[in-house]
């Protein structure tokens, strides 16, 4: 673990701490203050975008455990989110379960479905495993579309806003606190997991599963654990998505979304604690930026061919992916590390 210049650890506690210095604590507290006061100055739309970011962070944290730490490529993450979302909707509407219970059960149900589709990981890996997870995506959506007695098919399901006791999270601002709290806990869990025995086993399996097995790691059970945890977070994200949106249909969890999540993780940085957050912030802001930019360009440059400005969205995303894969395959997390290093050493570059 990298430490700021002139800092040394003198105890086990300080060695294992995530935040090391007083400056870091101050900056972290300032960040929390800035984050949790956002509802005071952001409009409804801004909060909504940040809520969506928070939900996506929870989902990408799970994908990062699975793909980034354990090296099991999954291209069906949106399908696992759908399991969580529908679990929340069905349990909430039919059984009247409180939100917190259905939140946990959503994670568990998605995790169990993930276990099922993770079983082929014993025999196949890499692109072959990716194909089995694509199958998961399509099978889950097919079931949702056809098990209409439970899922309501194309009608979708309405979901009441989350509530704890008599307190309802029925506005963007209230949802913000719920979603950010869950996102924060998810990031904290994943950060600590990566530094634990389990996390190190995941990394060993990712780097060389044969060598890991020789070292005594039960590769299959760790792969399954990674699938369970990755899909558990997808289920939690799906549950949050359902209550954020207020209604869900299978169209909210498309194969395109699964691809997008992989793209977000690559741009953020695979196998890093901060990568999922940076990737989500970058992509979601870019989306909003392009949504805003297209009408402006169309209105300003009326001579442009039809569809030029509106096609910017696809162009920008494709370009971002190519630029990152060529110039920074380690993602924004690596840039963040470089920035911190140069900041600590400034004005002495080396």
């Amino acid at each position, binding site marked *: 673990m990298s430490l700021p210049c002139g800092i040394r650890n003198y105890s086990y506690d300080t060695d294992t701490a995530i935040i090391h210095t007083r400056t870091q604590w101050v900056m972290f507290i300032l960040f929390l203050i800035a984050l949790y006061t956002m509802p005071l100055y952001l409009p409804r739309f801004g909060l909504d975008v940040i809520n969506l970011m928070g939900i996506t962070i929870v989902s990408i944290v799970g994908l990062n455990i699975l793909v980034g730490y354990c090296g099991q490529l999954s291209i069906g993450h949106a399908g696992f989110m759908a399991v969580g979302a529908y679990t929340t909707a069905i349990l909430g509407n039919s059984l009247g379960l409180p939100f917190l219970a259905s939140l946990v059960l959503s994670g568990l149900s998605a995790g169990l479905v993930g276990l099922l589709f993770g079983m082929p990981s014993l025999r196949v890996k890499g692109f072959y495993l990716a194909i089995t997870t694509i199958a998961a995506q399509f099978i889950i959506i097919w079931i949702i579309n056809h098990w209409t007695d439970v899922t309501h098919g194309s009608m979708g399901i309405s979901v009441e806003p989350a509530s704890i006791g008599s307190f309802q999270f029925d506005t963007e601002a209230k949802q913000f606190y719920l979603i950010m709290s869950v996102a924060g806990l998810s990031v904290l869990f994943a950060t600590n997991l990566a530094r634990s025995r389990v996390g190190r086993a995941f990394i060993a399996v990712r780097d060389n599963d044969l060598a890991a097995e020789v070292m005594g790691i039960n590769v299959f059970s760790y792969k399954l654990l990674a699938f369970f945890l990755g899909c558990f977070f997808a289920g939690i994200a799906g549950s949050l998505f359902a209550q954020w949106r207020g*209604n869900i249909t299978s*169209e909210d969890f498309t194969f395109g979304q699964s691809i997008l999540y992989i793209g977000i993780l690559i741009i953020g940085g695979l196998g890093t604690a901060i990568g999922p957050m940076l990737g989500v*912030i970058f992509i979601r802001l870019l989306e909003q930026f392009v*949504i805003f930019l297209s009408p402006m360009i169309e209105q300003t440059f009326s001579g442009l061919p039809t*569809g030029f400005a*509106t096609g910017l969205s696809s162009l920008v995303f494709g370009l971002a992916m190519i630029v990152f894969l060529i110039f*920074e395959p380690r993602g*924004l997390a690596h840039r963040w590390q470089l920035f911190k290093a140069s900041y600590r050493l400034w004005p002495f570059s080396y």
Partner: protein
Amino acid sequence: MRRRRMTVPLALLLLAALAVSILPGCTPTTPVTAKVIKLGLSIPFTGAAAEKGAPIGQGQLDAFKYINDELGGVEGYTIEPVWYDTNYDAAKATTIVKKIMDDGCSFFTVVASKDMNASKEAANRAGFPGMVCFSSPSLTHPPKHIYAQLPDYGDDWAAFARYYLESIWKGEGKPKMALMLLNNSTGYGVKDAARAAADELGIEIVAVEEHTATTISETDALTRIKDKNPDVLFISSTPAPTAVILKNAYDLKMIPGLTVGCAHASFTKALIDLAGKDVTQGIYGVYPTVNWGDNVPGMAKMMEYCNKRHPEYAGNNDYLIGWASSLINAEIVRQAIKVSGGDALVKGDAAAWALMEKNGFMNVKNYDVEGLHGPVNFSDPVDKRGSKSVKIFQVKDGLLVSQTGWVDAPNILYENLDWFGK
């Protein structure tokens, strides 16, 4: 140094995106003091539905230009369309409707049923009225704050089924019908309508097959359908997959011979362009507007704008739907201004939304849309469909030829059916 070269632009890009797209007061809209009424438009200009979203969106924007430039706005108020591209992405559509609310729009219009499905809950909770061009039963049932410009896909099926029984079917007993449906609300709307009304009409549904928007072959599904020996095939999808289905059916020698009907989402010039004249010859389709070039009052001006500004969409009835949508928007605003006065609507806040719905939407009664499609009536508190009428067309030598006048589609009260949404 090399490393920093990329870090700084990335950081700047992130900051710019944050500042422009999220912080308040940065939107390019007009201050609320002007005599301007803002209307939100959520358009899938890009993405899987762009072939329909782009002509409809351009039709909407061109019509607002016509209304402002040539008609002087509505009752002295300029209409400012505030539009965003949804990319046919549900998550984006959800945030866009919030953006439209924040922008001070008095109501909003969504092109695609999928996008409205993603937006409707936020709009219904906030009491923010909206109109959707292409609708499915799930958007307007049960009735809340969402209105449909046109009959929904279920209505297409009901209207075509009636026409088939009255004008085409010559056999005895119940005709056998197969359904080929897109795997979203475009297709499932038809499935719901068939489930609700097939028995009553006297039609036997012998096969229901689904496909994706990106399908490249439906030979398997059509072979299964062929085995059931149907009398008629009904397709509810978008132009590209419908073209694939028709080409496959042609190769399997199912057509010509089998009667084929298409719901309005696919039945445009784009379908004939994609599938070809030979394959589409004799295909029936339902469409909720008059045909391009028909002699109705609003046609000349619409064609003038289309030819001048977007000639690539000439002959595309989706452009016509977009144009008509804006004319209806203007009528809603006109009715609201008459009762509430424009100044009460300019702010685009919750009070303006309520006034717009009560005095605008609910006062639109049999508005003729300059003859471009069936008359629009939003005053019925139960039936939220504006136009209830469709026409049956047939493809003849690459042209859509009208076979009927306006055919009314009954309002199926889905919410009263015990299986709907349960």
